[in-house]
């Protein structure tokens, strides 16, 4: 069985481009991999009643979130026989345009990587205790609600 690294999935502030590029780079020596799937969540400047979102402030029930993430990651890793899987989520205030979620899956063939990435994103949104506070340009806020189709 492959080892699943238990790293802290939380990042203070936005996930940086350098970090994403470095993560991809590290996989070029893993020549058993044929496909990578990446999802990046970006803070959108939603508009409501004449005002607009300038940032989202994320908080998490960290201890529980990490425990759940490790468990879900293990399930998906085994289900899709992945070669690699990395998950990072921002905490704190992320301005519009900033990357707040980075899911990165790799497998021998493309399909498992793509399906695993999709499933991980869905499960993070549904099952991980993280909350987003949408901050508007007039300093009011609403609480983000996730939509499932």
């Amino acid at each position, binding site marked *: 069985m492959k080892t699943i690294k238990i790293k802290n999935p939380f990042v203070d502030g936005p996930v940086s481009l350098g970090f994403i590029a470095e993560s991809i780079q590290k996989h070029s020596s893993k020549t058993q991999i044929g496909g990578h799937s990446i999802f990046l969540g970006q803070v959108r400047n939603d508009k409501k009643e004449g005002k607009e979102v300038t940032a989202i402030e994320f908080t998490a029930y960290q201890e529980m979130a990490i425990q759940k993430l490790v468990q879900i990651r293990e399930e998906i890793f085994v289900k899709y026989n992945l070669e690699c899987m990395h998950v990072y989520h921002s905490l704190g205030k992320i301005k519009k345009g900033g990357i707040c*979620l980075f899911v990165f899956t790799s497998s021998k063939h493309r399909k498992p990587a793509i399906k695993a990435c999709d499933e991980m994103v869905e499960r993070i949104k549904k099952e991980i205790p993280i909350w987003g506070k949408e901050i508007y340009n007039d300093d009011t806020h609403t609480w983000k609600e996730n939509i499932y189709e």
Partner: protein
Amino acid sequence: MKKIKIFGNLTDVFKTNEYVFKEEINTVSELKEKLVIQFPELASSKFLIVVNNEYINDKKIIESDAEIALLPPYSGG
């Protein structure tokens, strides 16, 4: 006395992210009842109560050193 972790929109109701609950309670259902008396808005709020990171049966006794948290619907990602 119990400290309760508060998250998401409930922090607007409690005005804190760690609420000190002074009354004596034994179960999750008792806790819920008493919280709703103190914060009537909770009656119409959606949230889960977790104890030591787990959803537990409403009737189960909460141990004295347990960590309690109120979790509204998640909105990460």
